């Protein structure tokens, strides 16, 4: 029993490939906890960043600078009354958020945080991710239908039509990235996520810059389609409050609505991870071959520690700028404690053994965090697309451009 | 426990096929009849893939073609259903009994 547990520790593969169920469960729990924390942090960041974009402050009261606001939101949502509309189909009403949640979270099985830091490495990894993320359309359709009310039905029809339209362009963009993995000596590509990042490492170029500008155009198509796929601004007509009174999740309140929100944010992080893996080099540090050598490796490996020390510095500046009124004493102490915790994490990340192990995970998470900030930035900046404009962009603009990029990538791959 | 042989998969596929045939022959709702046809196609696919484990990948390629054709057939069948529903407001197969109205 014990050597079943310890036999994995010496191996150099993912737990799924090694067949070790115990360690696979540990990895699943870690990823699940990490995604839940990331969703709460994303919730806070969205409210604060949107507020600062709109020259206001956002939540400031609940914790220092609103840091405990997600916890207050979670408590509020969990204690709300659970209302099911009359004559709504109770079973389908219950199962719709669960389908979206399960579909969004199942994608995390194949996301690689490092060369061996994934739950497993299916050799149809990309196909699996595309397929499972397309199952969330079923949850949306069922949520709209089971609410027995015309606003959710219209919102669900519009939302699901939008999602399946942009899945086509997404799939085409992904295929052109998969084509680039086959440009090695043996001429065989791979669909596995870890294999794609290793192909980028072998060809010594991120697929974003390969066959410039076609890699970039494919990435841009995927980036636009993934925003539409997750029903986020500027493609959020089906769930915008001024349009259809929150669309397919109108009749959901309390904990059920929070499941929808959790599923939506988890889907955002999942498709951003796909984009990072396919085009941005996954866990590879920037400039892996133009800036080589031991000194550059050392410089780049110090960046995680400096990031957390920078965050601690910002928190300390926030502490200094807190009002000196006695009512703010608890908030000041809380923020100072948070700054100290961030500083300790930064200092721990300077220790060489930790520093070497944390590199891959840090670069992957940093790239996904950039995408998350882009999502919030889009929401603050762009006006909403009208639904017919949305469908026109999906079918008449993105799909032809994606097919064109695929053809050009294939031609350049054969010729060059 | 007896090892799982190809016969186990064939028996499952046959059971699915019989269930699909029962659905097609006994239900009145057109949508459920179309879903039973999808069950029949899935049973055939399972048979193909079960045999392809022994005799090469041709079964899997043919299963992919069957899935593609099932998609086309479902689209056309549902289009016919919508066109018919618009005229006669019913989705029952035994009320489709006039050649012209």
């Amino acid at each position, binding site marked *: 029993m014990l050597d079943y547990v310890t036999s994995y520790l010496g191996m150099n593969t993912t737990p799924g*490939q*090694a067949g070790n169920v115990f360690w696979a469960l540990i990895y699943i729990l870690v990823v699940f906890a990490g995604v839940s924390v990331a969703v709460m942090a994303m919730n806070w960041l969205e409210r604060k960043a949107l507020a600062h974009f709109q020259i206001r402050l956002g939540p400031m009261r609940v914790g220092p600078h609103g840091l405990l606001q997600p916890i207050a939101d979670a408590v509020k949502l969990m204690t709300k009354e659970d209302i099911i509309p009359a004559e709504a189909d109770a079973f389908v009403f219950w*199962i719709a958020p669960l389908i979206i949640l399960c579909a969004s979270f199942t994608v995390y099985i194949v996301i690689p945080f490092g060369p061996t830091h994934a739950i497993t490495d299916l*050799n*149809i990894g990309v*196909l699996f991710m595309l*397929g*499972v993320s*397309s199952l969330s*359309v*079923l949850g949306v*359709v*069922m949520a709209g*239908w089971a609410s027995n009310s015309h606003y959710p039905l219209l919102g669900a*029809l519009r939302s699901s039509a939008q999602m*399946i339209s942009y899945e086509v362009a997404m799939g085409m963009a992904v295929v052109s990235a998969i084509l680039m993995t086959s440009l090695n000596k043996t001429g065989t590509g791979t*669909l596995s996520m870890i294999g794609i990042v290793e192909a980028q490492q072998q060809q010594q170029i991120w697929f974003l810059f390969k066959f410039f500008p076609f890699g970039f155009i494919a990435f841009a198509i995927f980036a636009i389609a993934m925003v539409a796929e997750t029903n986020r601004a500027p493609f959020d007509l089906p769930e915008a409050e001024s349009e259809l009174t929150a669309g397919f999740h109108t009749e959901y309140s309390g904990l059920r609505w929070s499941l929808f929100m959790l599923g939506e944010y988890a889907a955002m992080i999942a498709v951003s991870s796909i984009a990072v893996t396919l085009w941005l080099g996954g866990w590879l540090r920037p400039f892996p071959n133009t800036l080589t050598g031991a000194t550059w490796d050392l410089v780049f490996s110090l960046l995680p520690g400096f990031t957390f020390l920078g965050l601690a510095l910002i928190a300390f500046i926030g502490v200094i700028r807190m009002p000196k009124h006695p009512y703010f004493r608890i908030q000041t102490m809380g923020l100072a404690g948070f700054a100290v915790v961030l500083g300790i994490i930064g200092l721990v990340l300077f220790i060489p053994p930790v520093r070497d192990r944390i590199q891959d995970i840090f670069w992957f998470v940093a790239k996904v965090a950039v995408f998350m900030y882009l999502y919030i930035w889009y929401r603050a900046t762009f006006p909403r697309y009208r639904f017919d404009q949305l469908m026109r962009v999906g079918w008449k603009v993105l799909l032809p451009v994606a097919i064109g990029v695929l053809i050009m990538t294939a031609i350049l791959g054969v010729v060059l | 426990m007896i*090892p*799982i042989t190809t016969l*186990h*998969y064939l028996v*499952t596929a*046959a059971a*699915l096929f*019989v269930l699909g045939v*029962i*659905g097609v*022959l*006994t*239900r*009145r*709702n057109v*949508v459920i009849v179309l879903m*039973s046809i999808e*069950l029949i196609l*899935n049973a055939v696919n*399972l048979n193909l*893939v*079960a045999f*392809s*484990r*022994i005799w*090469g*990948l*041709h079964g*899997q*390629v043919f299963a*992919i*073609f069957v*899935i*593609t054709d099932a*998609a*086309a057939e*479902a*689209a*056309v069948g549902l*289009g016919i*259903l919508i066109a018919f529903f618009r005229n006669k407001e019913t*989705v*029952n197969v035994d009320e489709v009994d006039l050649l012209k109205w």
Partner: protein
Amino acid sequence: MAPVATGFFFYFLSGLTLLGGILVITQKNPVHSALALILGLLSQAGLYLMLYAPFVAGVQIILYAGGIMVLFLFVIMLVSIERTQREEQFNKLWLVGLLSAGALGALFVLVYAKGTGLFPEGAAPPAESNNTQQVGQLLYGQYMFSFEIASLLLLVAIIGAVVMAKRRT
């Protein structure tokens, strides 16, 4: 890596598939039938994985469960079938249908009882690591003509469905 607990997984997945099939043909509400069919399709994708066919399993999830079933649910929602739930569900000749399906099942049982041992069981299972590459080579090499015909078929189906479902103004 040797397969783990194949007996348990096979009985579980095939049980789920057959349960989905039974629920499709017996449920009164078409949306519940569609949900049961989705359950059956996903467990059938699991059966494909057990048969060393990961590409077909992925295609099944994407196309069947994520595409065709969405189409079915759209049409069910548009056709507004609430009042059909209070009507008679099974048609007048349900006994004849059941008996003929039973005869078909008896035929299957007869064929499988007499026919075991006709195909080789000891063949080595195909490699899983390059299943996608080999399926791709077959699809674009030997079956290229069928592939093009299938794409033409899909085009015809799209045009036909649009023409038929359009409102004649």
